[in-house]
């Protein structure tokens, strides 16, 4: 299959890689219509897919997504018996089953590709992917294929797997969900039919329906209602009984009383063939309340999944070196301070410790959010969860398991998530007052009317209980939130819990991380001073280099034609020399170029060297241009921040980067000096968020933390609302309430606007519901309510709420105007204006 990659949807200047969609370096572009690749890895992946008949991957792929990321780890620990005990379940037929959390799952082609793993690996019986939670359920025959090779295959396809611990709880939840759905289905079917029967009675009654048909319909309603109350309706009685025993007022209490009284009274009236039967109201009540409860339950669960995913990120086994030099695999829980552990290249450190033997570089992005690897030699302290990149090293364990720094941060994430519960408690308290008021009113109604006959008093009291039932009230919030969350997801904003929307309606404190949040978090060309004509020459030199700086140039000028290079020489850590079109071109650090060329001092002086890394370009012995390399500020950051400040948000820049760099970036984005905090550790970030939470004058002012790294995760979890940005670490996204699926921070503005509109819809819904209730109470207490009015008011109020929720334009469904994609376009004029 030879489809020209993203060109169909996106303007791409130059050539895009058929596999990953990145720009192809000029030197690697070949003529013709065939596939083009940016590197050998993409070519290999393409060939695997082609030879396995899986080329449709390219048809299902969502091309706006980030390029494929793979960890390249060996996943040997997946084959360890201790790992198997923790995560693998044995199933019938000698097969095993595991649930793996996959990074980078987002679209239809992911489902397709992951579920084709059995075709790639004989011995894998089944692979099923649940997109919403990125969970893959895999069944395999352990005698034919090892779990580590399954994990490696998934990793090579771009989905780094992590074991998922919540399997047992997951099974329980699934059973709960199925039971709830069964209840809703049964209740719905019965409610529909009882209402049809009731309609016949209401319509036929006044026109002299034959008594034997009236009797038939009344008895049929009774026969249908009894199972509805006994099976789906039972959870309200158990809930009410629980509330009574714990002496609290719960929504279930008046519901149970209304249901019990309504059915009893209806049954008596049916048997004695006199008075209203209430069965339609009772059945509809059960159905609508169950629907509301189900929606709410689902929303809360997504938020609860967060902590589980965090644990998936730490390694599970370690290779311990005994005193006699023998290597032995040990589960991480068995590690003790003082043990010597061998960590190979590409593996994560299993514990905090000090390197004793070996020299390597370490990627600490998980903890610090810093994307550049740091070098580590004997004596360097390293932390659990960070990645050993280049060479095997030996480590002396200092802190392991629960006392490691990562575990402490994760525990803080969990604790913060639990502390949010009081908001829910408050809602329950309020409903308690509502319940109390309804019960008191019902008793008053009964006492007022009891002088006119006990039967009549019962009828009016029951009518009041049914008509004030919190049906619409219970649906008002979950329906509006569900509608808003769905719309937001389509607009690129993923919202896990509805309470986040509520908090965002009032402006408050907005705390933003710098690297990766306000900036792109990778090396880019930020400033170009000098002659544009040398750009093609420079690109020609950089085309074959794998250095991050070369990558930055290629991204900045994707459409530029290059020319062939002769006599190319790389000087590691200094620069490149080559001959282009007969001119000698030198690109490199100022010192490197100064040895080979003259001039350029005033160009260098123009560049703010304190923030940017200078790269000097010289042609034929004369310096002609200086490029500033750094972490580029996102195009939309300034405008979005300005918009948020106009709405009354107080912004703070909180960065783990050096205070000097934080101050420079902050000043450019309009932060006041006292609003910029640099050099903050993950613990300090958390402390600042807690401090702001404690200091705020008004409890409705939210503290919002926006970030992208694991170093932000604890702060994000502690904040009133935590926001993870596009491309962030999985741990950060897991602890965030809201996750932006499109690049940039402009979605924050839409989020705040959308929240305000959603709360407006909720308030309108509650207003409607309370209005209906007030009218219902007045009618019932004055004894004016007839069964017909009660039967009409109930569904009408719920229907109003339903329509109000779905028609309320909480988040614009239309695709927002997208900014130019930096990967493919990145015009130089924008680069300069950003500088």
């Amino acid at each position, binding site marked *: 299959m030879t489809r020209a990659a993203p060109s169909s949807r996106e303007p791409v200047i130059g050539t895009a890689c058929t596999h990953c969609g990145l720009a192809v370096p000029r030197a690697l572009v070949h003529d013709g219509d065939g596939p083009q690749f940016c590197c050998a890895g993409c070519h290999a992946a393409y060939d695997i897919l082609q030879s*396995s008949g899986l080329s449709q991957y390219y048809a299902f792929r969502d091309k706006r997504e980030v390029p494929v990321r793979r960890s390249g780890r060996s996943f040997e620990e997946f084959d360890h018996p201790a790992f198997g005990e923790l995560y693998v379940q044995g199933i019938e037929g000698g097969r095993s089953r595991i649930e793996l959390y996959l990074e980078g799952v987002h679209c*239809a082609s992911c489902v397709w590709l992951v579920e084709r793993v059995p075709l*790639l690996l004989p011995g894998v019986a089944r692979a099923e992917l649940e*997109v919403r939670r990125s969970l893959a359920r895999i069944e395999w025959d352990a005698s034919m294929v090892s779990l580590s090779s399954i994990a490696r295959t998934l990793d090579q396809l771009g989905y780094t797997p992590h074991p998922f611990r919540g399997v047992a709880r997951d099974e329980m939840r*699934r059973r709960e969900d199925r039971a709830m759905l069964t209840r809703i289905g049964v209740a719905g079917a019965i409610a529909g039919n009882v209402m049809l029967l009731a309609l016949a009675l209401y319509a036929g009654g006044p026109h002299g329906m034959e008594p034997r*048909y009236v009797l038939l319909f009344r008895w049929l309603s009774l026969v249908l209602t009894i199972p509805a109350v006994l099976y789906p309706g039972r959870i309200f009685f158990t809930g009410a009984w629980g509330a009574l025993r714990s002496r609290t007022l719960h929504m279930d209490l008046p519901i149970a009383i209304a249901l019990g009284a309504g059915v009893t009274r209806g049954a008596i009236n049916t048997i004695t063939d006199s008075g209203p039967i209430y069965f339609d109201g009772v059945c509809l009540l059960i159905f609508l309340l169950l629907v509301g409860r189900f929606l709410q339950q689902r929303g809360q669960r997504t938020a609860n999944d967060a902590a589980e995913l965090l644990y998936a990120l730490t390694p599970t086994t370690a290779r311990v070196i005994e005193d006699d030099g023998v290597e032995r695999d040990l589960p991480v829980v068995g590690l003790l301070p003082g043990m010597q552990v061998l960590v190979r290249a590409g593996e994560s450190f299993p514990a905090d410790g000090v390197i004793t033997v070996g020299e390597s570089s370490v990627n600490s992005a998980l903890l610090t959010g810093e994307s550049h690897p740091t070098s580590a030699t004997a004596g360097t302290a390293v932390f659990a969860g960070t990645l050993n990149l280049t060479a095997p090293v030996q480590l002396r364990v200092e802190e392991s398991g629960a006392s490691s720094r990562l575990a402490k941060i994760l525990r803080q994430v969990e604790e913060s998530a639990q502390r949010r519960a009081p908001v829910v408690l408050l809602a329950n308290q309020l409903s308690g007052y509502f319940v109390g008021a309804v019960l008191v009113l019902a008793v008053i109604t009964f006492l007022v009317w009891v002088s006119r006959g006990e039967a009549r008093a019962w009828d009016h009291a029951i009518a009041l209980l049914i008509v004030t039932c919190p049906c619409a009230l219970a649906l008002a919030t979950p329906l509006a939130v569900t509608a808003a969350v769905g719309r937001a997801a389509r607009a690129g904003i993923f919202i896990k819990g509805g309470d986040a929307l509520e908090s965002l309606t009032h402006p408050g404190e907005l705390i933003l991380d710098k690297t990766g949040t306000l900036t792109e978090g990778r090396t880019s060309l930020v400033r170009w001073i000098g002659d544009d004509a040398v750009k093609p020459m420079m690109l020609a030199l950089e085309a074959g280099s794998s250095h991050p700086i070369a990558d930055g140039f290629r991204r900045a000028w994707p459409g530029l034609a290059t020319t062939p290079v002769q006599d190319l020489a790389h000087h590691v850590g200094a620069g490149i020399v080559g001959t282009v079109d007969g001119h000698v071109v030198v690109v490199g650090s100022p010192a490197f170029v100064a040895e080979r060329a003259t001039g350029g001092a005033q160009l260098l002086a123009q560049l703010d060297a304190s923030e940017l890394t200078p790269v000097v370009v010289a042609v034929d012995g004369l310096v002609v241009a200086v490029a500033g390399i750094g972490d580029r500020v996102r195009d939309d950051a300034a405008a979005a921040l300005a918009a948020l400040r106009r709405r009354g948000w107080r912004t703070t820049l909180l960065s783990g980067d050096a205070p000097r760099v934080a101050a420079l970036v902050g000043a450019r984005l309009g932060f006041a000096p006292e609003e910029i905090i640099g050099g903050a550790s993950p613990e300090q970030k958390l402390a600042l968020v807690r401090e702001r939470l404690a200091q705020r004058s008004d409890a409705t002012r939210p503290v919002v933390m926006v970030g992208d790294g694991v170093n932000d995760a604890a702060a994000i979890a502690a904040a009133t609302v935590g926001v993870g940005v596009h491309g962030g670490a999985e741990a950060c996204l897991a602890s965030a309430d809201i996750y932006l699926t499109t690049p940039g921070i402009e979605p924050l503005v839409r989020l705040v606007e959308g929240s305000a509109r959603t709360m407006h819809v909720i308030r309108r819904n509650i207003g409607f519901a309370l209005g209906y209730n007030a009218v219902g109470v007045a009618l019932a207490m004055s004894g004016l309510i007839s069964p017909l009015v009660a039967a009409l008011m109930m569904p009408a109020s719920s229907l109003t709420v339903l329509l109000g929720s779905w028609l309320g334009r909480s988040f614009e469904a239309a695709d927002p105007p997208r900014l130019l994609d930096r990967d493919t376009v990145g015009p130089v004029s924008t680069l300069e204006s950003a500088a």
Partner: protein
Amino acid sequence: MSVLFIVVPLALIVVAAAVAAYVWSARGGQFDDLDTPALRMLHDDEAPASRVAPPTKGA
């Protein structure tokens, strides 16, 4: 109109059958995941042209 004595109970039996079918599908897990099957139906069922050996480490 006395046909109602037969038709209405008959209708209720049909409803019972529908409810039974729904309960069966809910218990069987057909509503567990509502997102993925919608994406899955996009895929063709065609058999792959060939199989490849599992990619090894570093491939």
